[in-house]
């Protein structure tokens, strides 16, 4: 659904840029000097509905701390976010502080629209987890282009009832890829192909977790077609042929995959701690049988998602924007946000506090603590340079390989070539 809107919107985006190229070449992306006062705009990504009070108070606090400042808060719906940013960037109406993920920050940085924080605000660097600070670095460019904000990671949910029915131990879920593939094949066999274990095809994060090298060291070429990647596809192909991968996996959105899990026609699905509430409300019969485990990985590092705050380098009030972006992402305010919902702060030390270490017996806390612990070693596997086009090329290759239209070697090789071609285009 969300994806639909993004795309539909995007569809849109496409044309007529000769009319509206931004004069971005002579923007100063390295400094943000000036007085902290005046009006700035702050754009979040689909947070208003649930966290309005939090943000209103946050802005109030900032305006009190820096008299003479005024923050205008804009929240954009989840769908169409990238295209709203494209339109604003192209039209010169980009807000001063923008909520971005690393892959959104990359093209904006290349267009000289993102402030380089290593140059403009190096004094804040030490407040954040080093891995988080680095997450908005872009291969081929110097600098860091967004303040790290909240982190997210998620467990793998499984359906204990379906495990038990297939004769698998519901209290011993798969923990490694070997166990996962073995259990999935057992499940398919015992249910005569009725119950699949997984509902989505492997994405770039799965390649990363499996231990495939995604890009070369200098970030100039994709390498996911190495033997390890081929091996992952071979194993997935076996799953598909046995019925252990849902037939509709090739076209399913994450929402559709989630629905299949809630309908209990698929035995495992990745999610976040928030999903527990959803299961309880929308699928109570599943909730009774829910099991929680970690997503397997061969690297010792789970995957994490990073949100950041980018400062518009072409803004009029950069000093205020930097101050505000830092204010939102400082230890205190990130901690307060983490109490609002199940996300994790990217500031140093936050994850060692009691909130993320002490059990209170509830499932929610158990998931929160497990997730926080896994963040110690977590990595954002998705390369920041991997654009939507490249993701499509990879997914199409995976599909061809799994369906047997092409050998896994050939499919992956062609996908890597296509991604590299797109990468060279810039």
């Amino acid at each position: 659904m969300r994806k639909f809107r993004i795309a539909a919107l995007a569809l849109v985006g496409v044309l007529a840029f000769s009319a509206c190229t931004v004069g971005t070449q002579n923007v100063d992306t390295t400094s943000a000097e000036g007085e902290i006062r005046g009006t700035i705009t702050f754009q979040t990504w689909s947070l208003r509905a649930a966290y309005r009070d939090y943000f209103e108070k946050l802005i109030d606090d900032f305006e009190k701390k820096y008299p003479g400042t005024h923050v205008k808060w804009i929240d954009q719906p989840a769908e169409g976010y990238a295209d709203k940013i494209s339109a604003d960037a192209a039209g010169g109406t980009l807000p001063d502080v923008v909520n971005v993920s690393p892959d959104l920050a990359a093209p904006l940085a290349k267009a000289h629209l993102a402030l380089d924080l290593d140059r403009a605000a190096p004094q804040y660097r030490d407040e954040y987890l080093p891995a988080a600070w680095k997450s908005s670095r872009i291969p081929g460019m110097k600098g860091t282009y967004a303040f790290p904000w909240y982190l997210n990671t998620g467990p793998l949910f499984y359906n204990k009832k379906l495990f038990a029915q297939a004769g698998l131990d519901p209290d011993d879920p798969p923990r490694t890829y070997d166990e996962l593939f073995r259990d999935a094949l057992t499940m398919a066999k015992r249910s005569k192909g009725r119950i699949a274990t997984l509902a989505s095809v492997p994405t770039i994060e799965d390649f990363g977790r499996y231990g495939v090298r995604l890009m070369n060291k200098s970030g100039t070429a994709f390498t996911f077609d190495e033997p390890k990647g081929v091996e992952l596809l071979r194993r997935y192909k076996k799953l598909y042929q046995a019925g252990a991968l849902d037939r509709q996996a090739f076209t399913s959105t994450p929402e559709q995959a989630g629905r299949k899990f809630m309908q209990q026609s698929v035995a495992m699905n990745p999610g976040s701690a928030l999903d527990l509430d959803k299961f309880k409300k929308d699928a109570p019969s599943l909730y009774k049988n829910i099991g929680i485990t970690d997503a397997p990985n061969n690297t010792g590092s789970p995957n994490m998602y990073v949100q950041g705050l980018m400062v518009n380098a072409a803004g009029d009030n950069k000093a205020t924007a930097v101050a505000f972006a830092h204010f939102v992402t400082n230890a205190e305010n990130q901690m307060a946000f983490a109490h609002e919902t199940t996300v994790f702060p990217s500031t140093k030390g936050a994850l060692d506090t009691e909130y993320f270490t002490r059990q209170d017996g509830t499932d929610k806390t158990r998931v929160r603590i497990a997730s926080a612990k896994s963040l110690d070693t977590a990595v954002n596997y998705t390369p920041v340079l991997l654009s939507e086009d490249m993701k499509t090329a990879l997914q199409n290759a995976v599909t061809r390989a799994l369906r047997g239209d092409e050998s896994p070697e050939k499919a992956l090789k062609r996908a890597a070539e296509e991604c590299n071609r797109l990468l060279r285009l810039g």
Partner: protein
Amino acid sequence: MKTATAAPPGGAPATAPRRVRRHLPTSPWLFLAPGLLAVTAFSLAPFLLTVGNSFTDNRTLVPGGFVGLANFRELLHDEMFWTGLRNSALYVLVTVPLLVLLPLLLAVLVQRHIPGITFFRAAFYTPVVASVVVVGLIWSWLLDDRGLVNGILEALGAGPVGFLSDPWLLLLSAMLLTVWKGLGYYMIVYLAALTNVPRELHEAAAVDGAGAVRRFVTVTVPALRNTMVLVAALSSVSAFKVFSEVYLLAGENGGPAGEDITLVQLVQQVGTGLNGRVGYASALSVVVFVVTLGLMLLVLRANRKEDA
């Protein structure tokens, strides 16, 4: 509006209206001004920019330069382009005949003023007014391997049908969704036209002993031929430009490995987002435009031949 009142009063009566000049030469343009202005500013001018872009390698945030026909040459070697062209063409071939005929039957069904008909007419229009996203969501649910439709099929002893996993069935499902959503729209167009069919023609045919079916074929269809051509033209234009239905059922890649992609979805895929290849996508848009124009001319020409 006010400007139009300035037109001078008419002069002498004329015998054949088509030859009449009842106005200063400027007045027709005053009538046309609002429409022409809106359409030129917000559709044609931007489209001309698109045409210009198709000769560049512009990207969303990075301006490029003139590349001549390179984008069009690239199209010829792009497998996805040919897949998209094939699917969009198939879409026209399947949905247009259905959308010309079925809504007409529906219009005849709801034409008669029987109690409750207002309710039915409004109800049949519901799929048109609902946003396509909602409709897509509901249908992907219904056609799922474990959805209502497969539930019914299984109860009848047929195995689950992979409406949403087989590339061909997916395309067909999207086509049926288009037809389902378009029925009410064209039903309205036909209903408006049906009220213009003189009842004397029906009465005469009835006196001659023609049954309902024969009257439909010999009276209704010929009388509505112009409307049917209009519907054929409109539906083929929108069928060739189809995006949402395929997108919603077949996913963002356009089916397994892009097997179900349509041209407009390809435009979306390559041209959008912060890394969008605006130049190449513009070239695709130009092709879509030219083919749609050709289709429309084809429909109209077929009509003229029949006239002759």
